[in-house]
């Protein structure tokens, strides 16, 4: 069966690409993210982050308790860049 499964729909990252990243040494969600761009789209991992956590735990044999979500950074919601630096702030 060769039907593709998309894990990160925002960045169109497939299940196989994530498995490859784990085989390449990714042992955290951030490791997968840096290699594949999973969790880096519009939703910032709100959809796929959980699945990536589970895949990392399974693929590395880690306890799921030791695979936290990706590191949280601002902005956690999509924000127009102009709000931070409009013409008035120039």
């Amino acid at each position, binding site marked *: 069966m060769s*039907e*593709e*499964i*998309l*894990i990160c*729909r925002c960045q169109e990252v497939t*299940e196989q690409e994530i498995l490859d990243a784990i085989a390449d040494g990714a042992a955290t969600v951030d490791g997968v993210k840096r290699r594949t761009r999973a969790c880096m789209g519009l939703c910032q991992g*709100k*959809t*796929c982050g*959980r*699945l990536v*956590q589970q895949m990392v735990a399974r693929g590395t044999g880690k306890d*799921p*308790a030791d695979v*936290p*979500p990706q*590191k*949280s*950074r*601002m*902005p*956690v*919601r999509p*924000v127009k860049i102009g*709000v*931070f630096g409009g013409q008035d*702030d120039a």
Partner: protein
Amino acid sequence: MKTIQTDVAIVGAGSAGLSAAYQAATAGADVLVIDENRLPGGQLFKQIHKFFGSREHQAGTRGYRIGQELLSRVEKSGARVWLNTLVYGMEKDCSLGVIHNGEHYVVRAKKVIVAAGAKENYMAFPGSTLPGVMGAGAAQTMINVNRVLPGERILMLGSGNVGLIVSYQLMQAGAEVVALVEGAPRIGGYGVHAGKIRRAGVPIYTSHTIKRVLGTNAVEGVEIVEVGPGFVPIPGTEKKFDVDTVCLAVGLNPMTELIWMAGCAFCFLPAFGGHVPLHDSNMETTVSGLYVAGDVTGVEEASSAMEEGNLAGVAAAESLGLLSPEQAAEKKAEITARLNTLRSGMFGERRRTAKEQQLNSMKHYRAKEAE
């Protein structure tokens, strides 16, 4: 950029956030509640079914009525509610980055209560990104808030209370629920909800999962398969259904981004949906002055979210000196007793144990810190 000062800032105007706002504002605190949605109430206004439990938890009252009553109490309490407003981040000092009416604000509050709720779990299978595959909660918002039917023929995956209740509400809204599919060998939610589905003639397939969703540009069908021990699909047991919508009711997980950002300590509790922040019996986290309430502390339901919100609101008001220790102790004892009732019995047992573990982890954390 503008700076706003307030006594208490609350992220989320759902069951927990509004309850916290009511408690803190009636004690005399200056309260600002922030929510990204157009309407307050979180999930409460989507709940057209009658709640369970005891009379003090308004059993027999429909969820949206409880929401209306809570909202009117909050309005009278003097708390400010900012809607359509994003909280995009939190600093280590708990100041909040906020976008309100297209403008950038920094909200500095003496106490911050995060009541951000939970988000739906996603499941990946071939075709899972086709239009027509959606969370059961999304479908519920469409029918009960926006009055739009997501599809005509629907397959529901997941037989917890969300899957059962939303299936029934989809039928009430005029859709046909073709099948309800559950990966586990038994139905997850309350028998009373499952009974309604069965009496309506919907087949329930336990020990089954979705193999793939079929379609070119939208959902045209779905194939399910029986699973054996370890959820391994059994070849040859596939069944196809002609549907235009597939709803996923496969659990929720807490929206903890802001709490991680503030540097709170977490523990892992699968019964609560994964990693959850440590908190004490006042709902205060390992970061002083930062409180949590509702599903963000571990996924439960609306009644316990309201009580956790009450607790956080009272505790925040107490630490601001607006309630005497005696006044606060009395209120907190009443709320805690009601919370314990909610976490008792056959269905509450798992959550009660998880909450105990969470509170104990907090005690260990503080003991270690004091060393």
